[in-house]
């Protein structure tokens, strides 16, 4: 039990750490970079913490559920109410979480789908086309201008000046002459630094050789666009190798900026559309993990909450259950219409109240009746001794006073029985052989009732832990009842049987007493263990109530019923009294 408590505390600590980690990582995830394509390492780590928390919490919740279900199946005290409450709380958490999850997924998917909305795509494409038309026109202008410049180049004489003039005239930002080996022969640039001349690649030169021109739109480091045109110079060559003219034209900065902006947006849109499905998966997976983890925490919380809520009820029930008998509770269940712990608790309270009332009445009666008995008896005895009169009168007085003394004794027995019922002595447990105890009771009565056949079947072996005197009293009471019941039978017989039974709470000894008498009245059976219930002419109605009280004190159980012939009484007693729980 101690080990269980320790491990339970450890589990709670672990769960607390997991909850803290999960909540912290969920919050961190919420505030981390929200770029859908840049699900960076921190986010993956945070998600990993959540997944680990989930898998760590899963066996804890499974264990709690298994224990709860096990207790429920074993019908342990409080398990039913705990089970119902845990189920209700879990259900209350589960249903809205699932509904919210599916709605969130739906809204999220719709939101992501808006990215790839056909109208947006068309608008962006149109913007691109518009920009392209404007750029194509500018590129063609550049190509036309560069071709015209190349025609005017006749040789390398004054080439730098010529290039400078043509550059200014055609509003170019750079003109350069390059040979087939990609060497820069001459150039004119609006920029002072000549090293910034962009030399074409061999591939581009090859393309010019094939197609007579090469145009490209280059972007600069400051996000501007430049039109680059490369044409062959056909009017002269150098060392019989072809020469190429490269011209750079700038775009209007405003147009360039807008083109850049449209192009960036289009690229970003295209990338998001391309990655739409994995982004949806990513969000759904993240949301799923978060929901699953939250649910698991809610379920675990519901188990804990139900446990804490039911614990005081269980404790109260255990206390009241000690004072009452479960059979009474069971019979009252129908009265209150429910079988859960609350109904049992109510029943226990009602029964405890009833028993307390009976006990109080018994005490008062014992006290009130006992007080005058001694003076009555003494007075009768004095009258008996002191009376002087005729022999006939003396004989009458003696007979009368004897009757008074005898009836006072009867009244004393009754008072004693009341006292026994009202005041429970502390039990003194010892290990005894129950078969021997039964045989002693049989011997006590068999001599006086030789016409009755007594038998005992000893299937239970070993010792059981009981208060021997109290159990002897139980056996004597039941045996007396059985003798009274079967005395009128043709061949009266009383049979005892002992056997060992087992359930999950431990081992028990079952004692069965069977007679072939007239059996119990059906009306008596229902309330047989309540005080003053008797079918005997001179019975006090306390015998079975005392028997039941003793068996309850032993945490046992007693049932009475009618068999095919006569009555049958079953007593179940735990073999060990330590850490004992009730049979139920």
């Amino acid at each position, binding site marked *: 039990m101690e080990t269980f408590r320790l491990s339970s505390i450890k589990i709670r600590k672990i769960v607390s750490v997991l909850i803290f980690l999960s909540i912290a990582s969920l919050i961190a995830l919420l505030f981390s970079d929200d770029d*859908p*394509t*840049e*699900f*960076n390492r921190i*986010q*993956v780590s945070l998600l990993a913490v959540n997944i680990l928390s989930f898998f760590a919490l899963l066996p804890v919740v499974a264990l709690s559920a298994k224990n709860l279900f096990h207790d429920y199946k074993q019908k342990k005290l409080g398990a039913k109410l705990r089970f119902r409450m845990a189920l209700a709380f879990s259900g209350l958490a589960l249903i809205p979480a699932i509904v919210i999850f599916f709605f969130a997924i739906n809204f999220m998917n719709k939101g992501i789908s808006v990215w790839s909305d056909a109208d947006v795509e068309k608008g962006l494409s149109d913007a*691109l086309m518009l*920009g*392209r038309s404007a*750029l194509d026109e500018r590129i063609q202008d550049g190509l036309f201008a560069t071709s015209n410049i190349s025609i005017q180049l006749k040789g390398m004489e004054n080439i730098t000046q010529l290039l400078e003039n043509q550059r200014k005239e055609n509003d170019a930002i750079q003109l350069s002459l390059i040979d087939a080996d990609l060497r820069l022969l001459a150039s004119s640039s609006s920029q002072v630094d000549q090293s910034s001349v*962009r030399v074409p*690649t*061999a*591939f*581009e030169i090859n393309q010019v050789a094939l197609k007579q021109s090469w145009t*490209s*739109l*280059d*972007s600069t*480091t400051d996000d501007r*666009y430049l039109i680059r045109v490369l044409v062959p110079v056909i009017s002269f060559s150098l060392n019989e190798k072809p020469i190429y003219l490269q011209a750079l034209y700038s775009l209007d900065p405003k147009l360039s900026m807008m*083109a850049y902006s*449209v*192009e960036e947006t*289009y*690229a*970003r*849109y*295209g*990338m998001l*559309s*391309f*990655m739409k*499905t*994995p*982004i949806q*998966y*990513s969000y759904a*997976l993240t949301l799923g993990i978060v929901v699953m983890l939250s649910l698991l925490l809610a379920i675990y919380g519901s188990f804990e909450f139900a446990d804490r809520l039911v614990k005081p009820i269980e404790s109260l029930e255990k206390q009241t259950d000690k004072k009452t008998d479960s059979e009474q509770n069971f019979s009252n269940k129908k009265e209150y219409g429910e079988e859960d712990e609350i109904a049992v608790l109510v029943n226990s309270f009602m029964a405890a109240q009833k028993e307390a009332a009976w006990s109080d009445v018994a005490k008062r009666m014992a006290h009130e009746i006992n007080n005058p008995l001694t003076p009555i008896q003494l007075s009768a005895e004095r009258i008996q001794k002191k009376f002087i009169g005729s022999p006939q009168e003396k004989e009458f007085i003696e007979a009368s006073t004897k009757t008074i003394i005898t009836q006072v004794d009867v009244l004393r027995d009754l008072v004693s029985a009341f006292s026994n019922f009202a005041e429970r002595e502390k039990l003194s447990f010892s290990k005894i052989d129950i078969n021997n105890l039964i045989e002693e009771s049989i011997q006590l009565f068999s001599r006086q009732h030789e016409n009755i056949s007594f038998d005992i079947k000893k299937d239970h072996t070993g010792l059981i832990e009981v208060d021997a005197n109290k159990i002897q009293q139980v056996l004597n009471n039941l045996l007396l009842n059985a003798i009274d019941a079967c005395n009128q039978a043709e061949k009266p017989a009383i049979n005892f049987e002992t056997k060992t039974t087992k359930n999950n709470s431990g081992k028990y000894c079952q004692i069965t007493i069977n007679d072939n008498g007239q059996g119990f009245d059906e009306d008596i059976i229902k309330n047989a263990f309540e005080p003053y219930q008797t079918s005997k002419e001179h019975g006090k109605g306390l015998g079975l109530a005392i028997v039941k009280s003793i068996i309850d004190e032993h945490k046992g159980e007693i049932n009475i019923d009618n068999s095919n012939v006569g009555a049958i009484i079953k007593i179940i007693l735990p073999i060990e009294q330590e850490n004992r729980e009730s049979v139920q």
Partner: protein
Amino acid sequence: MLMLFFFLFFSTQAFANLGAGNSYVKDGVYFSDVQLPFKLQQQQIEALDSGLTLRFQLSFSIVDIRNWRIDRDIGSLSQAYSIRLNAFTGRYMISNLNIGTKASFSSIEEVEVFFSEIKNIPLVDDSILDIEKNYSVIMEAEISAEGISQWIKTLSFWRENLDTEFEAIEWKLLD
């Protein structure tokens, strides 16, 4: 299931390629020319056309190959390019991320031709090399999608992988 996850998470698609490389000295510096059968996967072309940027990286290692001892690294160099489609011009822009030069091409084929032969890559100054040693150049090349986390790539498991690795090429520096 966990194994599958890790497999998907860390796997990149490698395809067998046979490339070649050679080195030469020019003005006291070793340069290399590399020939690669550069071919983009259909998924990568679709990604480019959608607006994604691909990164093509060449990693050179110069190693002193020693018999019976662990090889010694002399130096390493990384040459990276980005490839993207300029939606405005409809041309593929290639940027040399080391020196910032840019080139544009009208088709994927031109891009592939451009990368099939990369010339004049400066590797190492000959002053730090010992002429008697047996140096090798090992080149590894890979294409990866830029701006897409491994997480999102993993969740695109039904597609061909956007990342590809080329078989490493090795040649003698002093041949």
